[in-house]
């Protein structure tokens, strides 16, 4: 197993370095290989981690909880690596070869390092190293958010790096107080290792542990996107390149949640689980409430999905707060299912944005018609996100709610169900309008005001499908504007997929969601039940 872990530490980092010098095509291939290899390596860890905790020296420790979060990252890293091959080519289409090369080089190098940092974080034995790994994820992803180099992207990146770093400052204070608590029992020279602090949890002094847990929830919670420190999240998710949004949302938030779980373990051992559970319940319900309300009125597709991430992180926090084994098992499954579903949703959204040339929901319609694969797949992804059976999130949320009722948290479980339903309305209302709304604007009216006005006839050499031109299947609106132009270009949209690379990983995601929802494999179930035991799954 040591070889597997070493390979996980080396492969994505090497891919990142290799991408710095390679041509865009090679870099895409290297990234894809690294992503798929990493996912395979994490899968290889499952059987061992389902039965014992793997520890190597003072710095590496892999247990069932780690592997679950690494699985989420590993899968998304692989899926999004494949997706990026199509995305980067589309994104750099209109640019000169030098600019395209520069973009691809930066994108792939940072992307691999980002994946690496998220895979390494859950392997860290020491809370200090965990903090460092999470900080690395922040700075790398901030550069990725700024990659588009538009006004909005730079603004989002600045907000992100400042707010997240300030939050991580609090998390560093938490680390220091955790050290102080441990030092009272283990002596001054210990290295914050989980495998030394967890066994003595019951003897830790209360005040520093309480302080450390609160600071950790607030600090790492900034990166998880818990209310009220979520404000960077919708901006960064909406302005980042779409493959990065998928990783941010499905994987980065989960990795930060992993850090909170480690502090939860320590706090539960030292203080009993009541205090940490109450704290998580409060943050979880507040986040879920905020997200559910914001989901009802979103005009930007990627922001819609970002708020849905806040919703799901709230559900995770509430699930842990229930404390019942079945709820904790639901939380672990939810981490995996959310990664797959949110990854799919963002990948689908990326295709829609490329197709329609706008992130505005009002600019997108008839996706089912225009995108023979991505349209239906996006719809399925949103249904999966809204916890429709037979997908994985249905199973996980069902377990969480069942755990809530089982542990007599009736009010919280009821609130959870109501708010998830509100979120469902918000998500599906926007999505159905994008997917099903007819191609033709009602009554031949002009485009909605939110869209950039486009002249009906624009000379575009080599494109005979000009609106109103010969052979154009599209009607021209009374104001001389058709809705089904690609925003800002004046090109009429036809039924086609931008790239096959952007469809295949989504199919894989659907397969994963179905497997998780219908019948999780035995080894995975064992892994989850071991993780639940480690989290102290007794109510």
């Amino acid at each position, binding site marked *: 197993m040591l070889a597997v872990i070493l390979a996980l530490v080396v492969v994505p980092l090497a891919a990142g370095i290799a991408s710095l010098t390679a041509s865009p095509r090679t870099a895409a291939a290297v990234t894809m290989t690294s992503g798929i290899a990493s996912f395979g390596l994490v899968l290889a860890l499952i059987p061992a981690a389902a039965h014992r905790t793997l520890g190597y020296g003072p710095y590496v420790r892999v247990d069932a909880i780690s592997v679950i979060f690494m699985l989420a990252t590993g899968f998304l890293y692989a899926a999004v690596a494949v997706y990026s091959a199509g995305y980067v080519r589309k994104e750099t289409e209109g640019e000169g070869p030098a600019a395209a090369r520069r973009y691809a080089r930066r994108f792939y190098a940072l992307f691999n390092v980002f994946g690496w940092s998220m895979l390494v974080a859950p392997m860290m034995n020491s809370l200090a190293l965990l903090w460092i790994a999470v900080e690395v994820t922040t700075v790398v992803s901030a550069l990725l958010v700024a990659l588009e*180099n538009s006004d909005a992207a*730079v603004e989002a990146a600045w907000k992100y790096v400042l707010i997240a770093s300030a939050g991580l*400052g609090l998390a560093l*204070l938490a680390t220091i107080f955790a050290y102080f608590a441990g030092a009272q029992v283990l002596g*001054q020279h210990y290295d914050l290792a989980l495998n030394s602090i967890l066994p003595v949890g019951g003897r830790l002094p209360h005040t520093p542990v309480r302080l450390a847990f609160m600071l950790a929830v607030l600090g790492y919670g900034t990166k998880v996107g818990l209310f009220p420190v979520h404000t960077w999240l919708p901006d960064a998710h909406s302005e980042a390149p779409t493959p990065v949004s998928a990783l941010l949302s499905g994987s980065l938030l989960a990795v930060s949640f992993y850090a909170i779980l480690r502090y939860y373990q320590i706090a539960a051992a030292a203080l009993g689980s009541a205090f940490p559970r109450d704290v998580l319940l409060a943050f979880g319900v507040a986040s879920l409430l905020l997200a559910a309300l914001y989901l009802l009125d979103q005009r930007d597709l990627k922001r819609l999905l970002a708020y849905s991430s806040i919703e799901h992180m709230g559900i995770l926090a509430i699930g842990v707060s229930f404390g019942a084994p079945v709820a904790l098992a639901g939380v672990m499954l939810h981490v995996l299912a959310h990664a797959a579903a949110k990854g799919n949703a963002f990948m689908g959204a990326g295709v829609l944005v490329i197709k329609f040339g706008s992130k505005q929901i009002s600019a997108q319609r008839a996706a089912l018609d225009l995108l023979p694969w991505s349209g239906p797949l996006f719809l399925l992804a949103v249904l999966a996100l809204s916890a429709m059976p037979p997908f994985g999130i249905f199973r996980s949320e069902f377990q969480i709610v069942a755990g809530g009722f089982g542990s007599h948290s009736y009010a919280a479980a009821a609130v959870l169900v109501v708010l998830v339903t509100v979120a469902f309305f918000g998500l599906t209302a926007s999505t159905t309008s994008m997917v099903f709304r007819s191609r033709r604007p009602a009554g031949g009216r002009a485009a909605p005001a939110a869209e950039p006005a486009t002249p009906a006839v624009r000379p575009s050499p080599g494109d005979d499908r000009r609106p109103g031109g010969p052979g154009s299947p599209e009607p021209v609106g009374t104001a001389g504007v058709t809705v089904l132009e690609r925003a800002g270009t004046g090109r009429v949209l036809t039924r086609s997929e931008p790239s096959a690379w952007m469809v295949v990983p989504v199919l894989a995601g659907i397969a994963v969601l179905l497997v998780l929802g219908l019948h999780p494999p035995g080894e995975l179930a064992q892994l989850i039940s071991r993780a639940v035991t480690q989290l102290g799954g007794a109510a």
Partner: protein
Amino acid sequence: MDPVQAPGVYQGAANVIAALMLLLEFGMLRQALIRDQIRLYAAQSALISVLAIVIAADRGLPDLYALAALSAALKVVAVPLVVRRLLGRTGHDESPGVAGSYTLGVANTVLGSIGLAAFGFFCFGALGIHSPVAPAAALAIAGAMVLVAFGLMIVRRDVASQAIGFFSLENAISLAALVVAAGLPLILETAFLFDLLVAVVVFAMLMRAHHARAESLSTADLTQLRG
């Protein structure tokens, strides 16, 4: 509480250094030039190295000498150098958008920060966390510094002050770490410091990107994204 006793030389020295760090934090609140802000930051970082040396000498913790040297090399020399280099001309000239970037007036800002500092001081003091290594008042001062650093990031509307606010927040946490976690293994401290250096590089790159687009370091026009 014990009856008030005169602090010994060691305690007095440690507390004075911590208090000076807090004063420098207040200095950053109202600096108008990046150059001066970076100088204040470097001075604050130098003080923390001095404190580490004082603790190392008095309490016989040889690790802390190495930490002091490393911290000085990175925070007093490397970080200011990196920030200035990456900001180029912007860092030397009149720093557009930095002077007068207050949300509140200067007087209100300082008064508010004094309130914050007092709040932080008494909160951390009330925790009753005593360290075998350093005087407890230093921890309370670190708490005050954390809050003032947050205040600095909030009231100043320019990227340079906000970044300096974050860097000095890290200094405040280092101070707290010296008090309650002086025995933290050197290798972890080293990792923290290099991590900070990476963060500084990224901050500076983003500041440069912002300056290139907005022709100013002010964040007043960063209003596209909300809700």
